């Protein structure tokens, strides 16, 4: 089970991320789970998902974007954004867009290649929870949220830029 943290502590993880290659039969085989399903799966198997007895959330890969789920996203309890590799910065923009453009109020989770040294910026862009890569130490990761006392920009975490606070 991958370790999950929020900005303060290690938390239990009720969700399972479904791999991109998974077929719909898994819904039959594994009932009653809370799945974060890939966007394509979610689009293709709406009916099967409606009948499923566990909770369902969606994850977007870094080359997908929130516009593709803009009509339905408010019904989702959680949207996960994937970092296929930590140096792929697109999910930062996706997180910000979910919050600012679509006013998404649910949980935004970072999944994939989620490492200690990118956590501070992720939190600034609107991520709430972080499924850290298996080799990352949770204690070390939790320190990341204090890397900076404040920043110059207008962010999701601090919408008022420094020049309006000075």
């Amino acid at each position: 089970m991958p370790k999950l943290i929020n900005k303060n502590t290690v938390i239990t993880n009720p969700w399972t991320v479904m791999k991109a290659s998974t077929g719909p039969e898994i819904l039959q085989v594994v009932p009653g789970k809370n799945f974060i399903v890939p966007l394509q799966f979610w689009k293709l198997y709406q009916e099967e998902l409606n009948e499923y007895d566990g909770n369902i959330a969606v994850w977007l890969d870094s080359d997908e974007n929130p516009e593709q789920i803009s009509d339905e996203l408010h019904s989702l309890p959680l949207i996960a954004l994937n970092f296929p590799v930590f140096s792929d910065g697109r999910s930062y923009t996706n997180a910000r867009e979910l919050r600012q453009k679509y006013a998404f109020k649910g949980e935004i989770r970072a999944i994939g290649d989620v490492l200690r040294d990118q956590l501070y910026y992720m939190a600034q862009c609107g991520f709430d929870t972080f499924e850290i890569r298996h080799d990352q130490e949770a204690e070390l990761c939790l320190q990341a949220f204090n890397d900076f006392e404040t920043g110059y920009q207008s962010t999701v975490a601090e919408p008022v830029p420094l020049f309006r606070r000075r």
Partner: protein
Amino acid sequence: MYRYDGYDHQMLADRVAQFRDQTNRYIDGKLSEIEFLPLRLQNGLYVQRLAPMLRIAVPYGMLSSTQLRKLAYIANHYDKGYAHFTTRQNIQYNWPALVDVPDLLADLAEVEMHAIQTSGNCIRNTTTDQFAGAAPDELEDSRAYCEIIRQWSSFHPEFAYLPRKFKIAVCGTVDDQAATQVHDIGIYIVKGDNDEIGFRILVGGGLGRTPVIGKEIFDFVEKKHLLTALEAILRVYNREGRRDNKYKARIKILVKETGVEEFKNKVTKEWALIKDSSLTLTDEEIDRCQKFFDAPNYQELSNTPTQLTDKLQSNILFAAWHSQNVKPHKVTGYSIVTVCFKETGVAPGDVTDRQLEQIADLSDEYSFGEIRISHKQNIVMADVRQDQLFELWKALESGAMASNNLGLLTDLICCPGGDFCALANAKSIPIAEAIQRKFDDHEELTNIGEMNLNISGCMNACGHHHVGNIGILGVDKKGEEYYQVSLGGSSKNNASLGKIIGPSFAQEEIPDVVETIVGVYKEKRIGEEKFIDTYNRIGIDPFKEKVYAKAD
């Protein structure tokens, strides 16, 4: 110049502590090479052929004498006694050891300096005209806007992992000395209707493997919308810029593949969402930043005082330096002095710790304790009294800093090349030196007149060869170092990319090739025509014929 407040200091201290921790984890083996890579790059640290290279940010090229002295100390303490001015107004050290870098950064932080985002796939140092605030042809001082952009781009959480590096230049003068059109974003300060000052914004310019002149996307952006416009452009780029191929990842490729109009539409859509948000600039903030660049305490003086005119008549060396290196100032009785660091035999842009200290002392004495670095790798003292020019020149001369070749053929731009850089195909510094030796007669150089000769050791184009009037590019030909020559490039207002003249040359042929090119120009020029104007009139063929005829 800009002074840090508690917030700026805190952020810098946080950054130094963060990088110290990252470096320790890397040394302890807890952070892999590949994961440490972007972290060290975003703190200016490269691993080079011989040693690490650390690039220090010099925001829009401005330095105080206190900062210069600290840079001299660092050159002495952590390096081998010298530093290097880059073509983006920064400073590089070639020898600091990785373990020392966190301490070096802490030393820099004491004088409000850092190496943040001087490398890596993020927004880099914002550059501008080295005469900003002093130039007579300026619409408005660009430095306040550069500082506003510096703050917005520093530690921007959304744009730290862009597809590729991202460079912004701002130009407030009529005569563009900032190579604005070959930046990812080029910003011209312009006057709109009712004489309101705003910005004309170009995107997608750049050099490197695929040189492109930037395209206009907004002809007038109100001051208050500067940051929201930039943020909208970056957002589109971060999402849509190519990440599958490093060589196609710059914004210029995205703009080209999307089409300027469509790209503009996308940006306009993003912009609409944030145009009137908390990121909209306030008058107070623009005012606050402008105050840091208020005019220094100028005296009431007159132009061309006798102390100057007497010496111009009696000392021909001073007169030669004056006519080349001293430019008009917007304030009566003052001049702008450029100290040219293109002494033959010294790598262009190299400066010793002793020289840095001397420049610090001279700037305290003659130019309000401030200097600027130019993108042509020289140093500018922007506010020198005309009646003190001779004294300053004497002092420069005694420090071997009175080269009088500013703007001439031997004031060339040159990257570190194969002697230092791991990327280079070929050496560039020995080429520069061979050309400087060939053209060692000042009279002949002034006869040739204004000429930009730019040399890059590889197609990454750090030496800006595409926009040199004469451009020289090091290429690898079956393991041998060869040099390709191009003509007609310019980074000024009429920016253009040079055209390759033909097959490349061996290293030892280059000085003669340059001489032949210059010979054609001298033969064909009409009156006072500059090289670039003659070239634009007659085209490349006459040069080509002569250069290759000789080879036969």
